């Protein structure tokens, strides 16, 4: 079978100044809904009510989509960092609980002596 030619879109197809359509406005609204739950440092400074063109919507869509990804990635990185830390803390704590053989016999002697003095 011969290869079928696929015509390319016209050069005028691209128009970021096209008035934003209802679907993109809905997508912006959904992203704004998600953006409100992001910590402040991830939020855009875009006033969505001022979005009138497809190009303006595109800027907002990209910014918030990437912010959502970044917020999750940062949380995952922090989670991984915290997952490493408690083991170390537990080991230190456990070591403090376990008296060393030398210290423990001396500690026992001291505490016994202290107990006898109290009596």
């Amino acid at each position, binding site marked *: 079978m011969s290869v079928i030619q696929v015509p390319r*879109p016209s050069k005028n197809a691209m128009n970021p100044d096209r008035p934003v359509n209802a679907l993109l406005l809905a997508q912006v609204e959904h992203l704004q809904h998600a953006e409100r739950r992001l910590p402040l440092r991830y939020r855009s400074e875009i006033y969505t009510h001022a979005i009138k063109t497809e190009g303006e919507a595109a800027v907002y869509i990209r910014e918030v989509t990437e912010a959502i990804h970044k917020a999750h990635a940062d949380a995952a990185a922090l989670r991984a960092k915290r997952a490493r830390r408690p083991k170390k803390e537990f080991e230190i704590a456990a070591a403090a609980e376990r008296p060393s053989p030398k210290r423990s016999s001396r500690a026992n002697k001291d505490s016994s002596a202290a107990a006898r003095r109290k009596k």
Partner: protein
Amino acid sequence: MPTGLDSLEHIVVLMMENRSFDHMLGSLTDVNPQIDGITDQLSNPDTTGSPVKPQPLAEFQGQLDPDPDHHFPAVDLQIFGGDTTPNRVANMQGFVKSYFNQRRDVGHSQKIMYHFKQADLPVLTTLALQFAVFNRWFASIPGPTICNRAFAHYGTSFGRVDMNPFDVIEPFKSIYSRLINATPKHTSKVYYYDTTSSTMEVVNLLQNEPQLFGTYQQFLSDCAKGLLPDYSFVEPNYNDHETDSGEEVASDQHPDHDVQAGELLIAEVYMALKNSPLWPNTALLVVYDEHGGIYDHVVPPACAKDKFSAPANSTGTGVEFDFDRLGVRVPAILISPWIPKGTVVNRVFDHASIPATVTKFFLGDYSQVSPREMNADIFIEPQGQAVDPARNLLSLSTMRTDCPEFNV
């Protein structure tokens, strides 16, 4: 004898935007009379009462301005012709009247009946003629994009017929969650075009499970390397934007985006799979989310009610909707080298068929689905059990070597 179904390991869905079956594939009735498209008997009255016939005069861009209304009340008018009485009968006679409401221009309103010629859409029409075209694939609800796409992800729109954010209501999980949390675990991905196009499933999937997402470039790479997940959902580019590598023209075919850009996308996705080592093991469904307010002649059938209802004050018609009627017909094509050329499918499907099919194929019995999904037909039979040959679309026992090729 084994068939192509026994080789299937990957399902890919590409969901485009806002074009009806008659608008895109209606011309194919002349090529294959089994395809239920445009005939001379079809018409819609305009606001003067004159019948307006479908004509092959659709243009790639600039014609359907304003964007035809496809919200619930407008689609109700399109389907019922303006009849709002309790025992009304659907007649598909309200499309021109509906479009007239937007610009109050009789001549312009008639353009809602225009359709493409076969030669205008070499990709979509070739795929429809070469693989399996569905005569009866309908939007899940007679309404807009967000809730129709919800049916493709969740098997329900949780009672919504509008474009507002919605909450997922347990126990109806997304098809992606079902797969990745199954035992044994399966793989799944939503490929959006890029972060500037993003996804239409923001509030639940992107916000809560961003790891599910990849980009279109990753999809192409995964195809080439044979790394596709079990189930992939591909979204087109929803907006015109600039990138570091140049202009990205919207490819979703939503009016008023250039239809040819969407043809190119469909061809690219098809060729990426055809050239992939996974081609023998993959089925691709190309489908549209809803009809975009554009004419189609087939009356959407009634269907099983969903668990949810849309209250009267949310439908815009003043009447409650029980999700017991499907939306307008849309183009849907199943592609695989194991499908006989010229297959035409007449069973009824809607977007709930997507999670229904994928779930049954990969997970088998799974009960936590909506009533709509439970009652939706499936387009790929599960493996490992007796298969009804009449239902198996991947029926060839020898893989085709004559599949079409596009220059992308």
